[in-house]
């Protein structure tokens, strides 16, 4: 059978020390940030905080030193990321760049692109947006219509991307678009690196169900791109975007989005041994403990140079279910207690964010399709 393996990772003393160091830093740095703000998880934006992390060497950790990185393993990075998320640190500014754009540029970029961009990502001063989805192209990404037309001096980009997280703060967007005639459904696509300060780009906010602004609509109206805006090979966009999604899907951000609520719940809940809700809590902790080891195992496989696509999809599917169950468990456990104002604010924040957990980064149904393919059913 084709079930993936999840070999357990063990932690070295150096890794344990790294964890302690990050934790001590965060205890200090976040001491004034209330739980309701920490509950934003990886949508909390603070450029100063990101720069601070960069100075400490905790961004671009897996990038080579020559590009401003730190030559650390994917497991070391995983440990730092886990601590950031568990503490509810405001990581949104650098999140996409550090998680997926940097590895994409390292793998497919030109030497020039690597030298100019990667050190800034590692410093926490260069932010990215993901330009995949469009109004009529969500799960079915291959139906994307945004197009970069080749000209004598580069490309002309036209089209509209939707749901682009933090496009309004990003320095660059990596836009998935058509560059050629499609000989097949997945052919004729490329990725282009778009400098967001170029003329012809308009970014307009789209508010979420809580009235928050994080994602956007981004229109490109005859945006002139230089020839070196091409990222990777022309026509290879589909394969590139799929490997980018593997980075996007594998991390602890896929099961820790509601961790601040777990903490708040434990703070407010008065122990009542024997009560039915006690076993809800126990089961929640059990799921979290196993998810942590599964996700860490995926990091270990990445560190060994493997591409654990199926394993990552499995962790993301289980992780999203967990994140979404947390507010429901909290409701059952704290029957009448919404009286603590901080708890109530955290609860509402997570409740209203929860639907997105199984949409962003590939929907539940798409992930299950990937798993089914891995099982040989498709």
């Amino acid at each position, binding site marked *: *059978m084709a*079930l*993936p393996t*999840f*070999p*357990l*990772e*063990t*932690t*070295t*003393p150096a890794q*344990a020390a790294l*964890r302690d160091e990050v*934790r001590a830093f965060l205890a200090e740095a976040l001491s004034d940030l209330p739980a309701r703000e920490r509950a934003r998880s990886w949508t909390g934006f603070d450029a100063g905080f990101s720069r601070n992390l960069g100075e400490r060497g905790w961004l671009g950790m897996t990038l080579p030193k020559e590009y401003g990185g730190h030559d650390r393993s994917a497991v070391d990075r995983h440990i730092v990321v*886990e601590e950031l998320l*568990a*503490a509810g640190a405001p990581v949104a500014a650098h999140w996409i760049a550090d998680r997926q754009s940097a590895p994409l540029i390292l793998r497919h970029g030109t030497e020039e692109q690597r030298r100019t961009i990667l050190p800034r990502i590692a410093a926490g001063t260069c932010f990215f947006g993901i330009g995949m989805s469009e109004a009529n192209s969500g799960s079915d990404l291959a139906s994307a219509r945004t197009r970069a037309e080749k000209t004598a001096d580069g490309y002309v980009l036209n089209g509209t991307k939707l749901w682009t997280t933090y496009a309004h703060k990003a320095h660059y967007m990596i836009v998935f678009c058509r560059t050629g005639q499609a000989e097949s459904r997945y052919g004729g696509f490329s990725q282009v690196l778009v400098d967001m300060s170029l003329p012809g780009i308009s970014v307009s906010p789209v508010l979420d169900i809580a009235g928050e602004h994080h994602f956007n609509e981004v229109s490109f109206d005859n945006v002139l791109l230089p020839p070196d805006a091409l990222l990777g090979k022309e026509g290879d966009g589909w394969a590139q975007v799929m490997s980018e999604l593997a980075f996007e899907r594998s991390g602890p951000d896929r099961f820790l989005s509601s*961790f601040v609520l*777990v*903490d708040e719940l*434990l*703070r407010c*809940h008065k*122990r009542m*041994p*024997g009560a039915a809700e*006690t*076993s*809800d*809590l*126990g*089961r929640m*902790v*059990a*799921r*979290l*403990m*196993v*998810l*942590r*080891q*599964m996700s*860490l*195992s995926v990091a270990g496989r990445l560190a060994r140079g493997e591409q654990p696509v199926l*394993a990552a999809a*499995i962790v993301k*599917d*289980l992780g999203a279910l967990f994140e979404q169950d947390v507010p429901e468990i909290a409701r059952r456990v704290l029957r009448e207690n919404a009286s603590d104002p901080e708890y109530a604010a955290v609860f509402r924040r997570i409740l209203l964010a929860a639907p997105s957990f199984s949409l962003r980064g590939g929907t539940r*149904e798409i*992930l*299950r*399709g990937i*798993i*089914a393919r*891995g*099982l*040989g*059913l*498709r």
Partner: protein
Amino acid sequence: MDSSTYSMVLETSEKLFAGRGGGGFDPALWSAAEEAGFPLALLSEEHGGFGFSAREAFAPVRVAAACAVALPLGETLLANWVASQAGLGMLDGPVALAWSGVEAVPFGRHLRRVVCLSELDRGVGLSLLHPAAELWHPGTNHAGEERDVLIAIEPVAPQARVAMSPVALRAVMSTLRTVQMAGAIEAVADMCLRYCNEREQFGRPLGKFQAIQHQLAILATHSCAATVAADMAVAAFETLATQGEEVFIPTAAAAKLRAAEAATAAASIAHQVHGAIGFSEEYPLHLLTRRLWSWRDEDGSESQWAEYLANWAQTQPERGLWPALTACDLAKVA
């Protein structure tokens, strides 16, 4: 990374147990397992074992469960491990641990002896019993595996003790069920995949329907989680001596709970995708699902372990749950 011993143990157990499941206790198969050294695998060489790692020693248990083989293999493995901790020496199997009181003893009537456990002020007391056949009150679990109650025994003073908390020992015993569940769930997933690739309705194999694909995908996620849970518990058991009960107990509790949750989901999906044939006695699915329904509540019910873990999470000091979780991570042994 897995050792060559591990692959060898796996291969030997697969050869031994494949196709031998479904029946009751089989003395010939027990002898073969003994000959392979499985029941003593946790003992060090000086105690008459092979000095296997816990992962290697539990591998035959997982395979036996996947094959629905009814043998007190894990029971004998653990009874010998406890006995050696207490300096009692090697015990001929089959033998099982049992808490004094009225709890049902796995495979009771087939056991050569029982290691009777009692809670002491500090540690657990052990006494060896050789109950006569007529003292067993026969019973079974949902899968028809013997779960016999020992009647009318006089309380015996402990002959030996292990310096281990009773809850830690309960967690050790629950780890056996966790490993068994992981093995059986993987076998269930395997059976479902094969069936859905073969069985056709509406002119296509069932596995071509998206609704079925998604059910099988969910089953796969649970199987992976259960396997990781079992690996976690076994690895924490391995480091009991170095990392201590503080790491082992919550890890084993979480593992048992997670495997139990997976067992419930796996059995439900498996019966659904199999249709009526899976509900028939002739088809081997129930050999696994009925075991899963039993094991999830044996050696500590799901609710008991859930309560334990909830209590553990809530009694963590000031810094909260997270540091307690990371403190359970496995340390690399030098």
